[in-house]
C-alpha cells in the first residue's frame, strides 16, 4: 500500500508498473486519474490551488484504503494526491487497485475515489476571470459515496 500527498506530478505508468513488478498473482489493475478541467460550473478556470490538512489527510486516506481492504480482497493499493497550484490538464489524483479479478479492482477503485471526495481533507480554490473562488462540495459526490454504505458484510435483510 502506498499513500502520498505531494506537489509534484506523478507517473501513472511507473506507479502501476511498481505494483505488478515481480508479481505473478495479480490479474487486474484498475486505475483512476483525476485531472484539472478548464471549466467548472459554467466558468473558465485558469488555475486551481489545492489545500489540505497535513496529518489528517494521510490518516483519512489510509482509513479509506483499510475500508476497501475490508470489503474486497485486494493485492495492492496506491493513492497519490497532489496539492498546491495546478493548471487545467494537470493530473490531480491517482488511485490504483490491484486484485486477482477485475470486478474487485473496479469496485474498490471507484469506492476509494467516491470516499476520498467526501472524507479526505482537501479543498480546491479556482482562479477564474471573475476572481478566486472556493469550490463548493457537490451533492453528486455525497450521492456517489452514499451508494457504498452500509458495508456489504453488514447489509441487513432490506
Amino acid at each position, binding site marked *: 500500500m502506498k499513500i502520498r500527498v505531494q506537489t509534484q506530478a506523478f507517473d501513472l505508468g511507473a506507479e502501476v508498473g511498481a505494483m505488478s513488478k515481480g508479481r505473478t498473482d495479480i490479474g487486474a489493475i484498475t486505475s483512476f486519474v483525476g485531472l484539472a478541467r478548464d471549466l467548472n460550473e459554467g466558468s473558465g478556470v485558469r488555475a486551481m490551488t489545492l489545500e489540505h490538512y497535513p496529518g*489528517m489527510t494521510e490518516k483519512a486516506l489510509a482509513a479509506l484504503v483499510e475500508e476497501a481492504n475490508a470489503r474486497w480482497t485486494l493485492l495492492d493499493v496506491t493513492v497519490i494526491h497532489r496539492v498546491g497550484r495546478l493548471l487545467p490538464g494537470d493530473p490531480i489524483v491517482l488511485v490504483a487497485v490491484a486484485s486477482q479479478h477485475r470486478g474487485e479492482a473496479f469496485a474498490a477503485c471507484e469506492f476509494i475515489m467516491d470516499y476520498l471526495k*467526501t472524507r479526505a481533507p482537501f479543498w480546491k480554490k479556482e482562479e477564474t476571470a471573475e476572481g478566486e473562488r472556493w469550490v463548493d462540495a457537490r451533492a453528486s459526490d455525497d450521492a456517489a459515496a452514499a451508494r457504498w454504505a452500509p458495508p456489504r458484510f453488514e447489509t441487513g435483510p432490506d
Partner: protein
Amino acid sequence: MKLRVLYFARLRERFGMAEETLDFAGATAAELIAQLQARGGMWAEELAAGRAFRVAVNQDIVALDAALPDQAEVAIFPPVTGG
C-alpha cells in the same frame, strides 16, 4: 482545558487565521463552536446554524456533540472538495 484549533480553506481566509491555542471551559464541539460564534463578525456568520462546516478532533471528523479531550487538536473546515 487547552485546545489547539486549526482552520482551513475558506474559513482560514475569512477568520484571517490558520491556527490558535484556546482556553476552553466547555465539554463538546458544539460548545466550542458557540464560544467562537460569540466573537461576532465573520465568526458568527460562518459558524451560524445551517452553515456547512465540519469539525475534526485529533484528525477524525466528529459530530457536534462529541466531547473534546484536553490538549485536543480541533480542526474546523468547509466540506471537502478534493480529487
